[in-house]
């Protein structure tokens, strides 16, 4: 019985991790600011869900607190601040300028995801834990894809430069 519960939690954990990766791909494909922000909120919700799942499973207060901080900051505060601070025309425009067009960005994102799997491969091999197995590569991929879209979005860089 305990085993079945643990298996279900590992399953749900893997599901949430997969959806986090999917949201990262979604962010690369969307052109509108509003859409990117929505994907960010969804992704952060899934990350928080991951923290709650693992925290619940291991009985760790730290992780539960981390989940709460994640919701407070990335689901509520950061989207709110961004919505207030970014100029209106950036929201109203249908397409944000990008250095690389969308299909190529998607392929790049895919390569980054594969690279992430290889990069954390040795680390993952050191832990027999299935949670590490599922989450670490996806976390790394999310980090790399995020860094990539920071570089590729031209409008945002221009806006930051003007500040």
């Amino acid at each position, binding site marked *: 019985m305990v085993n079945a519960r643990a*298996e*279900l939690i*590992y*399953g*749900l954990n*893997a*599901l949430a*991790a*997969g*959806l986090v*990766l*999917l949201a990262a*791909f979604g962010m690369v*494909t969307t052109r509108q600011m509003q859409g990117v922000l929505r994907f960010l909120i969804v992704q952060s919700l899934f990350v928080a869900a991951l923290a709650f799942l693992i925290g619940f499973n291991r009985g760790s207060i730290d992780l539960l607190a981390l989940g709460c901080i994640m919701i407070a900051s990335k689901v509520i505060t950061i989207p709110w601040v961004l919505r207030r601070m970014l100029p209106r025309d950036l929201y109203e425009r249908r397409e944000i300028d990008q250095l690389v067009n*969308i*299909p190529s960005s*998607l*392929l790049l*994102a*895919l390569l980054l*995801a*594969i690279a992430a*799997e290889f990069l954390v*491969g040795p680390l993952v091999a050191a832990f027999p834990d299935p949670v590490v*197995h*599922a989450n670490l*590569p*996806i976390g790394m991929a999310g980090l790399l894809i995020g860094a990539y879209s920071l570089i590729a979005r031209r409008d945002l860089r221009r806006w930051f430069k003007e500040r």
Partner: protein
Amino acid sequence: MAQTILYNLFQLLFVLGFAPLYAGVMSKLKENVQSKRGPSVLQPYRDLWKLFHKDEVVSSEATWIFRAAPYLVFVVPLFVTSLIPVLTDYPLAFAFMGDMLAGGFFLALGGFFAALAAVDTGNPYGPMGASRTRMVGFLVEPVFMIVFFTVSFVAQSTIPYIVQQKWVASPTAFFSPAHILLLIAFLMLILAEGGRIPVDNPTGHFELAMIDESKGLEYSGRGAALMKWGGQMKFLVLTCIFLNVLLAPWGLATDLQFGHILLAIPSILLKIFLFTLNLVMIETSLAKLRLFRISEFLGAAFIISVAAMIASIFSSGVV
């Protein structure tokens, strides 16, 4: 043996009989969601009946390809039906004649001849639509391949009956990121292959914007009926693969009793109805993509399917 062959033929009858109903229910629901009344769910049957009783007009420029294509388009989904689980949980007589790749190739064959036939008559709109269908087609095919290969990584087989038993073995397998990503990629494929809304508007009758519909523009009478019926069956077959093999292989008959197979029909129709509700939500909440955005839509499907493959390789510890 004779019994399983009979059941296989029974599956064909199921697909033949219910494909127009599926199309009818879908268009009715879609109209209802958009607060319109919509045609009766039986309208596709009436359309087929009407078309079968009309005279056929064939352009004098047309060759044998134009005459043969409707029969191919009609027969190909039936071939695929005999390879996949529609009503039963266990492999039937013809199940091992071909795997999912064979099914994909069969459907591609139908599409190929339909595109050739559209070019055949010399109508300017035909080739335009045909080239667009081919564009969608060659973007869809790699995704199909990757989806099938991912499936074979997990299930060690590409025979749909075996795959279907592997997915629901444990919640870990069902909720694994590979499975979820694969489902999303396959759903996007169904939308593209069936000519549904983010890719193509199935109810649009404006020749310049058509993708899938343009293939049947030149047909009349029996040819038009066969093309229509074939298209509806193809969509039902794809839905059956999605639901019975990949998403929810429950409610199928598990033994050889004929009563259980009859009982499987309502449960499968219920599953298809629930799926249709989702499809209607997708169709009414999205707008049709611009032509050159389609490559992005299918590119995303490709990326998702490759991500599913990576996830399944790495999480199964093969590498």
